[in-house]
């Protein structure tokens, strides 16, 4: 999110480590560009890339623009993206300010709990939400059927926008919070001594100064909204609302001809839009110096802004927010996994069953998918974090000629819907890798999953890297260490907390992600996300809930261990 290029005058004239840097740069750029090559190419062909006899054609683009459903999908996507981004950024910013700058009761606990939506697997969160707040959801039914109250519609654009905002809010919250932690609170004190009350301080000082951080997370969340598939696919369907990604996916899966070019064309257009977003952000943040506090020698912990009589109501509101968005759906999932069906028509204790867990436990693919997913989440997570860490060092702390390409490259995997990226990977594996080197085994799936989520690792690592002064590298060089030695012995160890955080983030995401591997999965290489998707398609949600609960338990265990480790790292 904060891919602000720290202009590093780490002006070492020549880089003897350039071979290693070249290898990593080419690897990163290759991994990212790889799946896009066939996609972009096929968008200009009359036939899919893998079939002989195609000719150059703009037909794909023409089909797309001629389709009124495409235009509707674009409109829906924009409505959703604007709404979600606005809600998530506003909410995340507000919560970050409340939790770091005011005397809100319970702010420390909230600080952690607000991250919950990002640690519940995405499919699990959708299942949980639909089970509780969906059309047939427990709470919805309770209100509409039993209490005859008017209810919301989760499958409407506003409904999906709210859900989207809940999912993306942690991104905004994290970005803003870390920026706030790095700014001198005496700026706010100065405003108070000038006579401004807490609200004024927030409105006229804190918020305007957060502009770069807000801009960064706005761009990231907006881009995520453009490519999001799960929400329109699972929530939008009943109301026949398509977004960009679901439109492409559905037209693709209903078309008679194999892989029509307009799907690639749609993906390419999305790439262009995201590139434009990156350019706009670079433009807007050009004057960022204006927002960097001058000579930030932080003035220590000062008295937090007093919320006065709003203290308790605000705290209660946040508590309710967390309960409604995370706790209740999570409890719903747990309950669902123990009943035959979660319905208001029959009391749950009449429906108690262990069948869901039994089905999950006896599914022969399940044990494999757990081990495979753990393998990918641990191994792939570690490898991606390592790769992104080194790539970030090259991008921001070296003179390697290609370094300027790396930061934007790391943003692109999240610029197109995962399903389409997966298709690109499938074609690339099919056409460019010798034999079935990676196509037919877990490697292929692992690579696709990891590449798609490189962006996440990068947005966690980059801000921490930016906070490490260049002089620390220089001191290393002066001591006689080359680029790689400095990276290995100074920068990477100092980045440990960020690396660990990035790893946890990757772990959680890799454990639950599924869309890039829809094309790649095959028996013997199942992963949890896909197994869950397949249970879903049998129409019986109990086992899906059981799987989601299982994932949450695994994630919770990992977080617990990581939390311990993080505390130890922080102590060092």
């Amino acid at each position, binding site marked *: 999110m904060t891919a602000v290029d720290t202009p590093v005058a780490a002006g070492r004239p020549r880089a003897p480590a350039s071979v290693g840097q070249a290898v990593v740069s080419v690897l990163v750029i290759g991994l990212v560009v790889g799946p896009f090559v066939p996609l972009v190419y096929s968008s200009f062909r009359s036939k899919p890339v893998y079939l002989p006899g195609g000719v150059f054609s703009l037909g794909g683009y023409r089909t797309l623009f001629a389709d009124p459903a495409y235009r509707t999908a674009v409109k829906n996507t924009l409505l959703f993206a604007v709404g979600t981004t606005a809600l998530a950024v506003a909410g995340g910013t507000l919560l970050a300010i409340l939790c770091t700058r005011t005397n809100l009761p319970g702010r420390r606990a909230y600080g952690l709990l607000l991250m919950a939506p990002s640690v519940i697997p995405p499919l699990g969160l959708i299942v949980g939400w639909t089970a509780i707040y969906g059309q047939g959801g427990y709470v919805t039914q309770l209100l509409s059927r039993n209490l005859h109250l008017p209810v919301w519609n989760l499958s409407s654009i506003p409904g999906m926008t709210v859900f989207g905002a809940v999912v993306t809010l942690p991104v905004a919250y994290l970005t803003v919070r870390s920026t706030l932690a790095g700014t001198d609170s005496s700026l706010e004190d100065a405003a108070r001594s000038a006579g401004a009350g807490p609200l004024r301080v927030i409105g006229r000082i804190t918020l305007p100064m957060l502009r770069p951080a807000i801009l960064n997370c706005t761009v990231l969340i907006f881009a995520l909204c453009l490519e999001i598939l799960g929400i329109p696919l699972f929530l939008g369907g009943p109301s026949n609302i398509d977004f960009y990604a679901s439109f492409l996916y559905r037209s693709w899966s209903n078309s008679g001809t194999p892989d029509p070019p307009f799907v690639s064309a749609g993906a390419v257009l999305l790439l262009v839009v995201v590139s434009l977003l990156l350019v706009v952000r670079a433009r807007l943040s050009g004057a960022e110096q204006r927002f960097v506090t001058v000579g930030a020698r932080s003035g220590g912990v000062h008295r937090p802004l007093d919320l006065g009589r709003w203290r308790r109501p605000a705290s209660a509101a946040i508590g309710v927010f967390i309960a409604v968005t995370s706790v209740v759906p999570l409890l719903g999932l747990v309950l669902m996994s123990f009943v035959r069906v979660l319905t208001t028509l029959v009391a749950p204790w009449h429906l108690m069953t262990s069948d869901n867990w039994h089905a999950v436990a006896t599914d022969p693919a399940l044990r494999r998918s757990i081990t495979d997913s753990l393998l990918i989440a641990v191994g792939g997570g570690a490898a991606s974090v390592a790769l992104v860490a080194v790539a970030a060092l090259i991008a921001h702390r070296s003179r390697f000629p290609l370094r300027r390409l790396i930061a934007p490259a790391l943003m692109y995997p999240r610029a197109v819907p995962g399903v389409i990226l997966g298709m690109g990977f499938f074609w690339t594996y099919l056409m460019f890798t010798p034999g079935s080197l990676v196509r037919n085994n877990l490697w292929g799936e692992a690579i696709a999953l990891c590449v798609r989520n490189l962006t996440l690792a990068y947005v966690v690592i980059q801000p921490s890297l930016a906070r490490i002064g260049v002089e620390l590298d220089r001191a290393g060089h002066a001591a006689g260490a080359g680029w790689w030695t400095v990276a290995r012995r100074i920068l990477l160890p100092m980045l440990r907390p960020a690396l660990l955080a990035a790893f946890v983030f990757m772990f959680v995401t890799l454990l639950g992600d599924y869309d890039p591997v829809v094309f790649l999965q095959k028996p013997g290489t199942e992963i949890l996300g896909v197994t869950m998707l397949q*249970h879903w398609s049998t129409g019986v949600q109990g086992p899906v809930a059981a799987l989601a609960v299982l994932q949450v338990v695994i994630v919770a265990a990992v977080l617990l261990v990581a939390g311990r480790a993080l505390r130890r790292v922080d102590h060092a």
Partner: protein
Amino acid sequence: STGSSSITTTASSASPPAPTATLARQAASEKGLVVYANVPNQYFQPVIAAFNKQYPAIKVQVTTLDDKTVFAKYEAEAAQGARTADLLVASAPAQWVEAERNGVPAPVTPAGLDAFPSWVNQGHGVYVMSAEPMLLGYNAKLLRPSEVPHTWAQLAADAKADPAKYRMVSYPISNTLDYAGFYGLHHILGSARTQSYTAALAPVTKTYSEGLDQLNQVLQGSASIAYMATGLTQAALRQYKGIAGYVFMQDATPLVPRAAAVTAKAASPASAQLFLDFLYSEAGQQALCRGGFEATMNGFRPQAGCTASLTSLATQVPAKSTYLVPIDQAVLDRQPSITAQWNKAFHR
């Protein structure tokens, strides 16, 4: 026994079945069987297990994909000469037609077809693995048995009479299964009646296109009826006795084929054919029925418990009310007009 008079039987251009012993010998030198199927794993597992009882040496790998992906993945891999599926299983008739045109199926004839209705062979090497009746699922807590409609006419009337009680869910027409079902409905009931029923149902219907999502709505109680639901519902609802049930529509029950074909680029053609042969054997039919697929064998007698078979369907639905949607160009050709009619009724 089942099957209406108008079932299409394309003349077979396929070669006569090879003897099983020869195939088994060839299969021994092949490297297992790869299947791309649109079947949820848990339903297909009994079938594989039964096959492996006969041929323990043949390792069967089933990759579960949606209809479209079954073909897209195969065609891309085949075009590049990569190892790909030996056998495809999918339901979308329209896409099978396209696949036939692209030369996807190999001209293979399974042994034992004599015991089956002739329409099992759809020509070009495509065979109906199961003919699944589209049915109606209902919530037993919301509807008393007497309130459950057994005909489309009744369903349409109920929808008009008590829209609050008869809240319904179904697929959208963009779903290939749903389209096939509607094609069948048009065929059995005629377009005029189908249209009037559709118009009556549209205002009380919400559509879910993913998997068996709509079943959940019925189970949870946000809808009381799921119509034009897939035949797999029979198996899925087994565990919800007392909460939900299903009925076949007496006036029109379209059968949607779940078809299988050995592929032209199969790396294990013999194993694939053995599997196909197995499907059309007594053991295979029993296994399909157990999995929830509709057994199609003439005079099929289900073993304990399983109900999914055309013989048992015949006892519940008059023969003239059933119709197997064929895999042929006509299905493709009528798609725009039927889709448009549906969309109009649903204001889409």
